[in-house]
């Protein structure tokens, strides 16, 4: 018996029973620290053994009184065919005399099934083995039973061993000389019972008419009859390794069979799902779920479709039984051979969606949706929305946009570059370019190497204030190189005042190492030492910067000097890219500065400026091209400094967009910096996409601002007219005529004078439609509000309903719809305004 463990949820929602050789009652509690009395049944719950009932042996079937509220009343079917009523200790049923009573058939034989009726809960059905001409399905009514008991006032009212005592008779009997394999009460009708009989029939009986069955079918599948909780028509039963699904309206043959690999042990419909059937196979650690969909098309019922799903409740041994929770959605208890109990909730398929307003929403079962804002993901969409709100990119001055990008160094660099390059071009520092934002490469490419070679400046380190040096520092100068230094905001030709100013700025920003490195690159080692020693201890680098200053003070370019050897060895241990670059520069051999130029932690403009100072003409272009290609590949917008607003720059922007999804900056930079390319399809697509995004966010004002800015750069392209007026008689366009009329008058006249004077079709001279309120022809000004001023207010504009095509002066229309719902035209019941209200909802 021990191997055959059964489990069942009780009607009390946090209690369940298990039974094998004894019946145990457990209570489910939220999981807490392990104590001796509880054991875990899931991640969130544990169970505590409350009571055991060992009064009965040889149990075949157990059911619980479905209206149990505080205590459980059990009906236990025994091998001798009796049904014992029992409880766990003293209970509310004691006064009614239920516990200890037995329901006894006339002839003892094995009891196969015991089942309380869920609706009429005093009815118990028992299914028994065959015995000669005795009935095998007995229905008892325990309410009568308790009455007879109170009359006799004895405890043991029924006992076949004491024939003197009056027996309680079953209220109904079916299945004469038959064998009952399994039973199921119908859920909708409390008097109907389905029985699997004789290993060859399923029969439906009605208690009100015990003599004849109301429906039956011939099948071997007589085991585990289960009726869908939501649809009494649908039955399931099994035999061996096959589940049969039945529809009572067509009971002759099953509507579906579901084959299994192994013999079945138990099937049960899910009480909380209308179409889910669970099944358990022998020697298996999984539960199979079947979702069975029925549908009706027209009058014809389509064959059901079945989806199988396998649930692994996670018990290490084979499951012997399971039970659905009657109220909690999809909650399942399983018990394994070893006695391991698992409380498992089958997750429903949940759908998920993402709103344009940045909420993630997902469904949970059939009742609820959950949603959460995606702010916590810190996505580019959140940043773009914030940017659009602050009119990022629409500020007239480029550098103001740089301030609007929060902590995004790359983007603020781009805007600062746009600002600086435009300023340099406007100031005439950079000349000879057609565009406002030339790239470094295009400037360098203009360097005519044959006519004007770069001038080499050689300075001895010793003269520069480094007494322990013998060698010289060498750098290049050229007109075009100077322009690049301007673009990188570096000082020209080591101009001390501008250098100090630049370094002070960096110092203010706390970029001590960068300042020091730039000082060193401008050959002002002493300045760098000062800078580093001035750095406060509280900075991230702390005291180490002072140490660096000390190291720097010992600068010597003698290849054999201890200083140089030491620095070459230990510079790789530095983490700060600028310090690394600084020492790499000072310890470089033969003016080979590769390790400075490839130090990716150094800002691109610093590297470019450095290259401009220290690379020879041939190498410079090579390096810049290499760098530009690399940055383009990475989609690093710093590369714009190199490419400028060329087609390479566009490719770089595309790459940036591909890698970040930041359509906002892409569209805005293209709009502001790439005027020449505004006509290309790629840029048009970017702009279109950004506008689409703003539309989705309902940021119509921001979008209008964007359109206005766009129009500034495309003075020849007016936004296309979206409304056309044509005469309803001759069909010729009136707007075309008006446009021709306007052409000579300047664009601001368009809305004014002429429109008002035109009240008939210029082609056929038929009058234009009338305002449905004042009955004046279109084009006539409203007279009421005329106060002599030439203002053509919105009130005079003509408007009409897109649905019924009736309309009039907008002033009149607004007035009308303040008081009415329907169209002002007699006989037209169009709800023009309300239609509009749908669209403009929220």
């Amino acid at each position, binding site marked *: 018996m021990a191997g055959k463990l059964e489990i069942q949820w009780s009607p009390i929602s946090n209690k369940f029973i298990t039974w094998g050789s004894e019946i145990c009652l457990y209570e489910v509690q939220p999981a807490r620290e392990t104590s001796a009395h509880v054991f875990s049944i899931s*991640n969130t719950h544990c169970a505590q053994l409350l009571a055991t009932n060992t009064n009965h042996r040889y149990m075949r079937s157990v059911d619980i009184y479905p209206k149990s509220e505080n205590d459980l009343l059990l009906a236990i079917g025994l091998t001798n065919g009796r049904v014992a009523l029992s409880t766990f200790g003293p209970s509310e049923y004691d006064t009614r005399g239920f516990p200890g009573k037995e329901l006894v058939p006339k002839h003892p034989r094995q009891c196969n099934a015991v089942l309380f009726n869920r609706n009429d809960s005093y009815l118990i059905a028992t299914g028994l083995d065959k015995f000669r001409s005795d009935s095998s399905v007995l229905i008892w009514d325990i309410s009568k039973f308790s009455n007879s008991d109170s009359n006799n006032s004895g405890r043991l009212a029924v006992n076949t061993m004491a024939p003197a005592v009056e027996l309680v008779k079953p209220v109904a009997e079916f299945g004469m000389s038959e064998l009952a394999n399994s039973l199921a009460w119908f859920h909708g009708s409390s008097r109907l019972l389905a029985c699997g009989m004789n290993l060859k029939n399923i029969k439906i009986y009605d208690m009100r008419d015990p003599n004849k069955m109301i429906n039956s079918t011939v099948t071997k599948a007589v085991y585990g009859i289960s009726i869908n909780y939501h649809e009494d028509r649908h039955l399931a039963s099994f035999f061996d390794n096959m589940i049969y699904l039945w529809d009572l309206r067509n009971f002759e043959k099953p509507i579906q069979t579901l084959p299994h690999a192994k013999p079945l042990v138990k099937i049960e419909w899910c009480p909380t799902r209308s179409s889910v059937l669970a099944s358990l196979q022998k020697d298996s650690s999984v539960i199979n779920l079947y979702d069975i969909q029925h549908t009706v*098309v027209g009058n014809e019922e389509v064959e059901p479709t079945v989806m199988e799903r396998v649930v692994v409740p996670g018990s290490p041994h084979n499951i012997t039984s399971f039970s659905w929770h009657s109220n909690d959605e999809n909650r399942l208890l399983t018990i394994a051979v070893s006695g391991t109990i698992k409380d498992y909730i089958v*997750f429903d398929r949940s759908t998920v969606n993402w709103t344009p307003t940045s909420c993630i929403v997902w469904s949970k079962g059939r009742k609820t949706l*959950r949603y959460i804002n995606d702010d916590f993901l810190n996505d580019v969409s959140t940043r773009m929305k914030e940017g659009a709100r602050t009119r990022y990119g629409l500020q007239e001055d480029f550098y103001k946009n740089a301030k609007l990008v929060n902590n995004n160094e790359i983007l603020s660099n781009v805007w600062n570059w746009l600002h600086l390059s435009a300023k340099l071009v406007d100031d005439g520092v950079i000349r000879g370019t057609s565009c406002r934002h030339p790239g470094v490469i295009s400037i360098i490419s203009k360097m005519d190497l044959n006519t004007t070679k770069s001038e080499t400046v050689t300075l001895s380190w010793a003269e520069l204030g480094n007494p322990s040096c013998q060698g010289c520092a060498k750098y290049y100068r050229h007109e075009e190189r100077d322009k690049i230094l301007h673009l990188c905001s570096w000082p020209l030709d080591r101009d001390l005042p501008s250098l100090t100013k630049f370094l002070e700025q960096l110092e203010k920003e706390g970029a001590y190492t960068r300042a020091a490195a730039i000082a060193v690159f401008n050959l002002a080692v002493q300045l760098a030492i000062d800078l580093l020693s001035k750095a406060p201890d509280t900075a991230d680098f702390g005291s180490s910067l002072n140490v660096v200053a000390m190291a720097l003070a010992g600068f010597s370019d003698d290849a054999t000097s201890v200083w140089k050897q030491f620095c070459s060895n230990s510079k790789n241990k530095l983490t700060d890219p600028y310090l690394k670059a600084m020492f790499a520069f000072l310890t470089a051999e033969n003016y080979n500065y590769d390790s400075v130029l490839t130090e990716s932690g150094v800002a691109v403009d610093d590297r470019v400026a450095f290259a401009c100072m220290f690379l020879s003409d041939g190498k410079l272009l090579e390096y810049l091209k290499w760098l530009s290609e690399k940055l383009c590949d990475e989609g690093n917008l710093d590369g714009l400094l190199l490419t400028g607003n060329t087609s390479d720059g566009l490719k770089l922007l595309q790459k940036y967009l*591909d890698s970040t999804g930041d359509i906002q900056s892409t569209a805005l930079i293209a709009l502001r910096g790439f005027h020449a390319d505004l006509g290309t399809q790629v840029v048009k697509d970017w702009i279109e996409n950004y506008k689409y*995004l703003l539309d989705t966010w309902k940021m119509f004002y921001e979008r209008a601002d964007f359109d206005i800015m766009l129009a500034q750069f495309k003075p020849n392209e007016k936004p296309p007219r979206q409304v056309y007026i044509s005469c309803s008689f001759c069909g010729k366009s009136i707007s075309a005529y008006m446009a021709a009329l306007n052409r000579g008058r300047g664009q601001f006249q368009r809305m004014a004078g002429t429109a008002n004077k035109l009240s008939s079709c210029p082609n056929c001279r038929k009058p234009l439609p009338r305002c449905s309120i004042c009955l004046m022809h279109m084009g006539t000004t409203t007279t009421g509000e005329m106060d002599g001023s030439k203002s053509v207010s919105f009130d005079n504009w003509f408007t009409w309903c897109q649905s019924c095509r009736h309309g009039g002066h907008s002033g009149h229309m607004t007035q009308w719809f303040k008081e009415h719902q329907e169209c002002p035209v007699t006989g037209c019941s169009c709800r023009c305004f309300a239609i509009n209200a*749908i669209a403009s909802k929220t």
Partner: protein
Amino acid sequence: MFEAQEINVEHKDLIHDVAYDFYGHRMATCSSDHYVKVWDQTSDGKWSLTYSWKAHSGSVWKVTWAHPEFGQVLATCSFDRTAAVWEEIVGETPGPGERGTRHWVRRTNLVDSRTSVTDVKFGPKTQGLQLATCSAEGIIRIYEAPDVMNLSQWTLQHEVQCKLPCSCLSWNPSLSKLHPQMLAVGSDDPNPASGGKVFIYEYSENSRRWTKLETISSITDPVHDLSFAPNLGRSFHILAVATKDVRIINLTPEEDDQSGVTKLDVQTISQFDDHNSLVWRVCWNITGTILASSGDDGCVRLFKMTYIDSWKPVGVLKGDGSPALSDVQRSSTATGSGSQTSTPSQTTARYIKLGSITQPRDVPWH
């Protein structure tokens, strides 16, 4: 922490789909209970039920909104073999100045399919009012309303045979004129031997036909959902596929001027089996930079693009209502007798097969 809000939608059966309108202020839900419900967001951010109706005589699989320039229009598809187009209209009003009661009417019922219609989606608005459906019998149908003012007239423009039962479809949402119309269709055919389960179709303006551009042969497991990311001007398209895991696939159109036929470079960029079980749905955020997926583990998982072609998991939202965490969390509560604390995915349901079909007319449903 991040607390998930809850909407009580009270469907009587499983919710299959949630759809938002263009602005995200209206919501439609559909369920196995045959009903569709429309919700509006009030000014304080709460969702209120506007209308609820029995839309079909079978499970309603999908619901989708048309672009608002066509009015307030929904399309649904169902197990009852039909797809339907619905429009919201204004009824009698109590008095002037008040907004009338609104209700939804069926404008058309598309009955061409002989099996369950598994997905329905409106095409990009630049192409007018187009509707694509796919069905379990393996046919993709493209309908068009020639007159956008008359939603009761739809003509079946194209019927594309897909050979395998279709479970889901997605339009490429690209706004660019450079990109021809493109559709991705997924199949939930359980047999791996029938080959790739994701098909890419493209409309050729020259031949005026939809032609199959690509079969993604690396995916042979049943596909339950797929979704194109908003293109946003990218040079490639991103397709997310829900199958036994989450896949992210880049489709890069390659320049090929001679033939006039687009060539696609298909690359599976990422593959996440974080759900450790079947994946049901995938969806993108508005920029196509984060992907959300739901799976049998009852969790919603989020994947974010960290750099070009590089994606990583960034969060898990648990379906059972516990607060969402941005890191994969382990349950810290259950410490039963010797039983190991397990991640949710370990104790979860696994779909081993879909649709145990004995009769040829049966269709698996996803």
